[in-house]
C-alpha cells in the first residue's frame, strides 16, 4: 500500500532571523485549496453556495469567510477557496457544487504563509505594490498581485495577513521575505 507523505511548500525553509518582536511568519498545515469557477447559470450557482455554505458570494475582489471556508474573489466569477479538509477538500467542494460550478484542486499549488505582528504591513510594503492601509484595503479585501515577480494572493487574518504564493517559487519568495523582515526580528511560529 502506497502512502505518500505530503510536503508543504515552505518545508525546511522557514528559519527565524530574530525574536519575532516585529513580525512572525507561520505556515498553516493541512489547508485545502481549490479554484471555484461559477457555471453559466450564476443564479443557480449563488443559490447552491447559499444552501451548502451559508455564504453569499458576490463577484468581486472580496473575502467571504464562513467558519470552515474562506472564499477569495480572484477574478470575475472565480474564487479561491481555502479551508480545513486536506486532501478531500476539493473533491468535497466539487460534489457540493456539481452542476452549477467547477472546482480545480489547488491543494499543492500554493505555499501559504501567515504574516503577523506590528511590522507585517511594513514588510509587505517592500514588495507588494498594493495599498494595505485600512482606508484602502478593507477587512474583507483580497488582492491578487505579485511580489518581486512572484504571484501572490493577500487577504487579512487577525493581526496580519495571509499570503498564498506559487509552490515552485517558495524558496525565492522566502529569500525576499527573510531579507525584508530581518530588520523587524522575523520570528517563525
Amino acid at each position, binding site marked *: 500500500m502506497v502512502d505518500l507523505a505530503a510536503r508543504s511548500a515552505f518545508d525546511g525553509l522557514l528559519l527565524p532571523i530574530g525574536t519575532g518582536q516585529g513580525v512572525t511568519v507561520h505556515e498553516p498545515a493541512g489547508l485545502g485549496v481549490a479554484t471555484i469557477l461559477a457555471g453559466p447559470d450564476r443564479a443557480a450557482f449563488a443559490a447552491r453556495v447559499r444552501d451548502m455554505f451559508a455564504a453569499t458570494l458576490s463577484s*468581486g*475582489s472580496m473575502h467571504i469567510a464562513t467558519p470552515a471556508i474562506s472564499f477569495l474573489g*480572484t477574478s470575475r466569477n472565480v474564487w479561491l477557496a481555502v479551508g480545513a479538509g486536506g486532501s478531500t477538500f476539493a473533491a468535497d467542494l466539487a460534489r457540493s457544487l456539481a452542476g452549477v460550478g467547477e472546482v480545480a484542486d489547488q491543494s499543492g499549488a500554493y505555499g501559504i504563509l501567515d504574516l503577523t505582528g506590528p511590522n507585517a504591513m511594513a514588510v509587505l510594503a517592500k514588495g507588494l*505594490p498594493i495599498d494595505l492601509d485600512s482606508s484602502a484595503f478593507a477587512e474583507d479585501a483580497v*488582492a*491578487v*498581485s*505579485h511580489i518581486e515577480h512572484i504571484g501572490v494572493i493577500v487577504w487579512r487574518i487577525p493581526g496580519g495577513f495571509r499570503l498564498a504564493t506559487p509552490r515552485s517559487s517558495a524558496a525565492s519568495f522566502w529569500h525576499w521575505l527573510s531579507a525584508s523582515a530581518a530588520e523587524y526580528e522575523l520570528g517563525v511560529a
Partner: protein
Amino acid sequence: MRIPCPFCGPRDLSEFAYLGDAAPVRPAETSDATAVFDYVYLRANPAGPHRERWYHASGCRLWLTVTRDTRTHEVLFAEEAAP
C-alpha cells in the same frame, strides 16, 4: 502608469501585459484573406484617446479595454473586454 482594473482596482503598470489596438474584430470564417491580413497587421496609430487591449496578467487575468491618451499616457477609462 496605473490602470484602474474594474475587478481589482487601480494597479501598477507592471501587473499588466499590453496587446494593442482594441478595434480589430476577427473576421468571420468566410472572410477573404485580405480581411484577415488587415485584422492581423493593420493598425491605426492615433494621437489622442485610444482603445487598447490590456491583460491583467498578475491580477485577475481579465482582458481589459483601456482608453488611454497616447500623447499623455493618461488612462481615461478601463472596462472588461468581455461583454
